C-alpha cells in the first residue's frame, strides 16, 4: 500500500499539487536530510544536496517517485532512502568523478585463526627465498578457498567485521542478529569452521 502522502501527491491535479508536495516534503524531510548527510559530512554540502534531491524527486511530475512499486515488498521509506542516496551519490560523481578504490583496511582473518596462519607473517621477511614465497602463496590460496566455501551470509559477516571493521552491534543490526553476543557467537563459530577447513587442507601452523 502507498503511504497517504504519496498517494495524495501522485493523484494531485494542478490545483492541489503544491499542497500535496509540501505535505510529502514535511513527512519525509528529516529522512531525506539524513540521507543527504550520509553522503556529505559538511553541513552546507548536505543542505545543498538536500535541495537538489527535492528538485530531482519533483522533476517530470514526480517520475522517480512514481517508480515505487509496493508489490516488491519493500516499505516506501526504505525504498526512498535508497533512491535518495543514489541521486546524491550520482551528483557527487558527476562533479568529482568516481573515488579511487579505498585503501583496504582488511585485518587479516588469519590473525584470528592464529597468527601462524597469516600468510604475511608466516615467513620471516628477511628470508625472501622462493620456498617461503611459495608457502605464502599457498597459505593465501588455501584461505581464499576456505573462505569461498563458507555460506554467503557467513562470508558477508566476516567481511563486515574484518574488512569494514564494523562494531558487533552494527553488524547485528544489518544482519538482523538480535544482540552483539549473537554476532560474536556466530563469528566464533564461523572462524572455527574456517580453521577446521584449513586444517583439513593440511594447514596447521608455520611449519609446512
Amino acid at each position, binding site marked *: 500500500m502507498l503511504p497517504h502522502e504519496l498517494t495524495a501527491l501522485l493523484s494531485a491535479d494542478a490545483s492541489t499539487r503544491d499542497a500535496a508536495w509540501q505535505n510529502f516534503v514535511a513527512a519525509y524531510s528529516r529522512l531525506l536530510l*539524513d540521507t543527504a548527510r550520509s553522503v556529505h559530512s559538511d553541513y552546507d554540502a548536505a543542505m545543498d544536496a538536500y535541495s537538489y534531491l527535492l528538485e530531482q524527486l519533483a522533476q517530470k511530475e514526480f517520475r522517480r517517485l512514481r517508480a515505487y512499486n509496493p508489490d516488491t515488498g519493500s516499505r516506501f521509506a526504505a525504498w526512498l532512502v*535508497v533512491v535518495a542516496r543514489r541521486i546524491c551519490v550520482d551528483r557527487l560523481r558527476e562533479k568529482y568523478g568516481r573515488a579511487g578504490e579505498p585503501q583496504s583496511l582488511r585485518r587479516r582473518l588469519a590473525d584470528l585463526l592464529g597468527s601462524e596462519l597469516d600468510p604475511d607473517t608466516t615467513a620471516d621477511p628477511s628470508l625472501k627465498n622462493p620456498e617461503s614465497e611459495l608457502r605464502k602463496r599457498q597459505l593465501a590460496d588455501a584461505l581464499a578457498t576456505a573462505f569461498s566455501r563458507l555460506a554467503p551470509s557467513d562470508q558477508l559477516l566476516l567481511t563486515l567485521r574484518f574488512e569494514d571493521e*564494523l562494531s558487533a552491534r552494527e553488524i547485528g543490526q544489518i544482519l538482523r542478529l538480535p544482540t552483539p553476543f549473537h554476532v560474536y557467537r556466530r563469528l566464533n563459530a564461523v572462524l572455527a569452521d574456517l580453521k577446521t577447513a584449513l586444517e583439513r587442507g593440511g594447514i596447521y601452523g608455520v611449519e609446512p
Partner: protein
Amino acid sequence: MTEHLTVDEVALHLEGRLPGADQSRVDRHLTECAECRAELVALSRVLRRNRGRRRWLTPAAALAVAAAAVLLFIIIPSTPEPSYREPAVSTTPAPVAITPRGPSRGVTRLVWTRVPHADRYRLTVFDSSGTVVSESQTTDTSAAMPVLHSGTRYFWQVEAETGFHRSIKSDVIEFVFLK
C-alpha cells in the same frame, strides 16, 4: 562481479525482507562489492536514526492528542511509580570503555570515560557465552579487574546511572585477558 544491487534489493535487505533464494545471491554480491556494502551500511544507519522518530502530526491531530492527554490527566488518578521502567531517552553521552580492549596483557583495572551527572557506574563482565562473570558498582570511572582466566575472551559493559531509574550504557567491548 555481477551488476550492483537494485534499489528494491537494497530496500528489502535493509528491512530483512529478501526472499530466501535472493538472500544468498545478495549476500554474495555484498561480500564482493564494497560500494553496495557501503550503501547498505550508510542507509541502515539513516533508517535506524529515524526509526524511533514520530511522524509529523497535523495541527488538528496534535491538538486532539494534547486535549486527550489533558483529559486523561484530569480523569485518571495518579498511579504509583512502577517498580521498573526502561531507561529514559536521553541526550547524555554514553560512557566509553577505554581499557581493556582487544588483547590486554597485564591490565589490572577497567577504565571508562566520565558521564556528566552520573552518580554511580555499574560494571558487568561477561564471558563469550553471555554469562555474567562479574558485576560491581562504583562512583569512580575505573574498577579493579575481576579474577579472570588468562587467554580467554571476555566482554564488558559499563552502565552510568544519571538519575532515578535513568541510566545509559556503553557499547559491549571485547577483550582477551592475558596475565
